[in-house]
């Protein structure tokens, strides 16, 4: 792990308040995840990859934005690891690192369709522009 | 300044005496001046009406008297307890020091007691009369024609300025309204000392403790010090002495005294109140209380009967003695 990755890892751990060392690799988070099939990296992988400092693939992955933040993994984890918070922290890191948002205002109109509730648009915008 | 009136206390005491609930009353007795009040046992309505007093100088904590008085008395004793006294009351019960059955405890609210030394700092010597008037004390001296008004708040005893609780944790009957536990600033002074350098702290305590005359008033008034024979009076204990010959013995006495009451001290402040040399002895006790709170979780001795004192308890995860200072240094 180089210094930069080490720092990034420490920062993610600090920001999320999650201690990935507590994970005992039971996989219950991934077992419980409703967005599992949408994700390239699954919740338990987030935990183990952050633990080992393997963060670049996570930053580049779409999985960051597939997490629904439903907190099922947080609720079910027997060790209190809270994977969702880790996902959120990596997401923040990605945004800060890129210096750009995943979603820009002018991209929004194209994505709209009539069925989408206003609330969903606003919350999605809030989430993807952090 | 006290909200509850003398008349209501006398009335309560007289009625309990007359209906046979109690056979004696532990109360405050009028003195020569308006501030030199003596704890006394009253046995009749006449005595109560004549000499019972309740004012801003009724500081004495009666709890400890119950140890000897319940032994001697056949009938029940009525005792008036201010909120802070009730903690000592419970702590003594926890330690099986008196028979609860022989006591009828009446909780009385307290607005804080005045410190005559502080009054004198304002008005000087020669006090001939002190009257309470709302939030003020009206003090007459032989030197001034007009009485001087002193705001009660300005002359509160230190322990009352930093009152930890207006709640009574024990009573058979409560007069007036129940108060609350207060978020006090009682540890501020301890913190101030902690922030000093060791050299400054040493100088501070060297100066304070050198004043000690080993009168034992702090120990003898302390409701936690109820040993049948104190180690400092016991020639076989190896630490007995009647007077401190040097600074070591001054420290020895006060460290051990504070250590023996650590976890049992309710912070009633009697030690500092009675010290004829004005040594802030309560700071030693508070240091232990503060440490206990920080190391082992908040603990208030006497909050309930039967609590397990922190020094006769432990957890597997307790702080190591070596970590004590790391922790403080990190906090500083």
């Amino acid at each position, binding site marked *: 792990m180089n210094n930069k990755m080490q720092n990034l890892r420490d920062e993610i751990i600090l920001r999320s308040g999650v201690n990935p060392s507590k994970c005992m690799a039971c996989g219950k988070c991934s077992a419980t995840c409703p967005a599992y099939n949408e994700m390239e990296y699954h919740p338990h992988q987030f935990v183990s990859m952050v633990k080992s400092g393997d963060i670049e693939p996570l930053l580049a992955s779409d999985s960051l934005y597939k997490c629904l933040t439903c907190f099922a993994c947080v609720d079910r984890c027997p060790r209190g690891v809270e994977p969702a918070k880790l996902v959120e922290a990596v997401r923040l890191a990605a945004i800060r690192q890129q210096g750009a948002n995943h979603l820009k205002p002018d991209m929004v109109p194209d994505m709209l369709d009539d069925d989408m509730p206003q609330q969903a648009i606003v919350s999605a915008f809030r989430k993807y522009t952090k | 300044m006290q909200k509850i009136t003398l008349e209501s206390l006398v009335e309560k005491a007289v009625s309990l005496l007359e209906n046979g609930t109690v056979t004696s009353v532990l109360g405050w007795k009028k*003195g*020569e*001046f308006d501030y*030199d*009040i*003596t*704890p*006394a*046992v009253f046995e009749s309505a006449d005595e109560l009406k004549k000499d019972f007093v309740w004012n801003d100088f009724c500081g*004495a904590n009666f709890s400890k*008297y119950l140890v000897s008085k319940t032994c001697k008395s056949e009938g029940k004793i009525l005792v008036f307890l201010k909120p802070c006294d009730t903690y000592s009351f419970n702590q003594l019960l926890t330690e099986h020091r008196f028979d609860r059955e022989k006591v009828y405890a009446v909780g009385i609210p307290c607005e804080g007691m005045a410190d005559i030394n502080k009054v004198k*700092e304002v008005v*000087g*010597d*020669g*006090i*001939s009369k002190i009257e309470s008037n709302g939030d003020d004390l009206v003090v007459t001296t*032989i*030197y001034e024609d007009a009485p001087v008004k002193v705001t009660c708040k300005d002359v509160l005893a230190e322990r009352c300025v930093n009152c930890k609780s207006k709640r009574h944790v024990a009573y058979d009957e409560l007069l007036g309204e129940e108060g609350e536990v207060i978020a006090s600033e009682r540890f501020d002074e301890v913190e101030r000392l902690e922030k000093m350098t060791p050299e400054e702290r040493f100088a501070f305590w060297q*100066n304070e403790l050198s*004043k000690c*005359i*080993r*009168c*034992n*008033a702090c*120990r*003898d*008034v302390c409701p936690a010090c109820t040993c049948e024979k104190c180690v400092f*009076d016991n*020639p076989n204990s190896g630490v007995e*002495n*009647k*007077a*401190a*010959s040097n600074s070591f013995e001054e420290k020895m006495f006060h460290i051990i005294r504070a250590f023996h009451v650590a976890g049992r001290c309710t912070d009633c402040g*009697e030690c500092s*109140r*009675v010290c*004829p*040399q*004005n040594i802030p002895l309560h700071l030693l006790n508070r240091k232990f209380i503060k440490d206990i709170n920080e190391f082992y979780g908040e603990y208030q001795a006497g909050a309930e009967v039967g609590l397990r004192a922190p020094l006769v308890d432990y957890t597997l995860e307790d702080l190591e003695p070596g970590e004590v200072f790391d922790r403080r240094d990190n906090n500083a």
Partner: protein
Amino acid sequence: MRKCLVEDINSVLAQINKAAKVYLPVDGTDGKARFEEWAEGKEWSNALNTERSAKDFFFPQTENLMEFKTEGKNIEIIDIRSDKDDFVIFGVRGCDVRSFDILDRVFLVEPIDSFYKARREHGIIISVACGRPSETCFCGAFGIDASNPAGDVTVWRTKEAVYWQSNTDKGEELLKKVEGLTDCDEAAVEEEKAKIKKIMDKLPLANLSTEDFGAGKTMELFDSDKWKDLSESCLGCGTCTFVCPTCQCYDIKEFNAGKGVVRFRCWDSCMYSDFTQMSAGQPRLSQLERFRQRFMHKLVYYPERNDGIYGCVGCGRCLAKCPISMNIVKVMKSLGGKDNE
């Protein structure tokens, strides 16, 4: 009669200090006065009285008497008495000055206490009249004149000046060595005395009477049923005895420091349950008996053996310091019948 200006007092004290070490009341960090060794910058306290009495100078709380040196099984006795230098106690109030007489009648009669005597002989007392007595003062009851206290030298302090009057040869000798005191007449002092007397008459305890006490009253007072109520709440601490200028009881103890033993004496209090612990143990078994002893001693036994002089000087320290505010005045008023109603 001599005088100096109030602002010159420090330079006068500096001069006295050249002749003999001076101790004077100085305010401490807690605002209370205690006797301290004079040094440049120490200010004479305005306080009426010191927290501890002046008896410490002649009868300190602890005093080493002799030493033993032990080596294996050998013991060597060492006499540690040494020559003392003269010293001056400045600013002693009339009550404390009287206390020295009371202590003298104990320590300077046969067998003479050589430790006390050595200190006493070297002490020069400069007393000061009480410009502003407190409500706790009752020295008048024992015939002490606070406006004109005894001592080797008496001092009056007014707003502008300090007046000095020598009463003994020792005092006169000392004052002679001091430059900067000017001779003056007695008018100002007389005026001050009159002023003080007027205040004394206004004190709440001005009329305290000793009528019912003194020699021969033992039988009358000893079995009084009032002792029970009076001693009821006594904690048995030693505060009253240790702040008292006339309490003179001590215990003799030894301290084994390993290679040697120090035999020393220290104040003891008749209020303690382990008081002296003589061969048969403490003779007074209850707090009532101990309490009674202290006051009977001051008010009856002592005068009985000392020409009617009471063992109390009315300094009021015990009134101010007792944790439960029980004191000799309350005892006198309670036992004293009508005179003190």
